[in-house]
């Protein structure tokens, strides 16, 4: 038969008193067995270590720029990219026509198509996740080797 010893009694009532005095968050910890406490602390330790590593480690570039943006962000970026390429192309062509060569409208027509190509290239790069940079040399070569979509 189990008879509570004096020591156990003190521990039990001590815990109750403790939980009454201190804030309710402590209750959860007090009710835990020692094993639970241990694992909870371990979890906290690993999380703390992770956070510390994250903040101190010399973090270089993550692959973030190589991931295509998703959802609404992608939609908002693509439209403006496409239009701005055409707009800049036409503006350059028009300016050259008017102020430099007096060859209206031929350069504007030429630069309209170049601008359209630039706009489509902007969108293509955004979607491929190359950033929208001009001249990503290494990425071009790497991807052309790996990515079948680019060959097709």
């Amino acid at each position, binding site marked *: 038969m189990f008879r509570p010893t004096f020591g156990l009694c003190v521990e039990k009532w001590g815990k109750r008193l403790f939980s009454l005095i201190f804030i309710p968050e402590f209750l959860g910890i007090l009710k835990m067995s020692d094993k639970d406490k241990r694992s909870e602390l371990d979890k906290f330790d690993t999380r703390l270590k992770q956070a510390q590593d994250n903040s101190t480690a010399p973090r270089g570039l*993550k692959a973030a720029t190589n991931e295509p943006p998703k959802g609404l962000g992608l939609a908002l970026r693509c439209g403006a990219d496409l239009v701005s390429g055409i707009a800049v192309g036409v503006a350059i062509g028009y300016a050259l026509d008017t102020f430099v060569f007096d060859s209206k409208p031929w350069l504007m027509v030429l630069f309209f198509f170049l601008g359209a190509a630039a706009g489509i290239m902007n969108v293509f790069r955004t979607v491929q996740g190359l950033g929208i940079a001009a001249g990503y040399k290494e990425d071009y070569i790497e991807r052309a080797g790996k990515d079948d979509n680019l060959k097709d």
Partner: protein
Amino acid sequence: MSNNPLHQFTITEIVPVEIAGINASFTNSAVAMVATVAVVSIFLIMGMGGRSLVPGRWQSMAELSYSFVADMVRDNVGNEGRKYFPIIFSLFMFILFGNFLGLLPYSFTFTSHVAVTFTLAMAVFIGVTLIGIARHGLHFFTFFVPGGVPAVMLPLLVPIEIISYLSRPVSLSIRLFANMTAGHTMMKVFAAFIVPLGFLGGWAPFAVDVALTGFEFLVAFLQAYVFAVLTCIYLNDSIHLH
């Protein structure tokens, strides 16, 4: 006409100033910008005033915005980007709070003017280009020559790359301006239907407006984020030139 949905974007002069024939008046747009700078300063300076180890609500909001941008810079530019954190953080907070304050009724959204957004985008563009040239010298201009391309194609591809590069500030500014203008116009258009449709019919546009308000908050944050993230990507391109 007060029902005009574009009336909200009118610039009015508050203190007329003219310097050498150039109209440099203090306008309602300038008031909104000053208010934004003031609110951002109050938010950050007073939020961090306590400097407590365990942050309160206000302080953790200020810390959150700091670490959000710090992580963004570190992920997209790497450690060399730390130098440029202040300008990116300022840009982000300026645009974010400008967008949010513009959502208050009777306020003015200065990001809905292409003059403002294009100035910001041009500042980023010129700065990033100068950083690239300063770090890489003439080697920077190999940026416009795509790799792995036969030489015959270069006369066609180099102009395309240059146009693509020049279109960056345009797309950066158009995106922000167009999103803010379109959202605010749409809200005004639906709001103008509420009273004329009467007590029975007015609920439909009212519900749309409620949904749009929530959507506008999302767009306000997203546009500030996109602007900052693209600034980081451009900076990364000119720092880590391949």
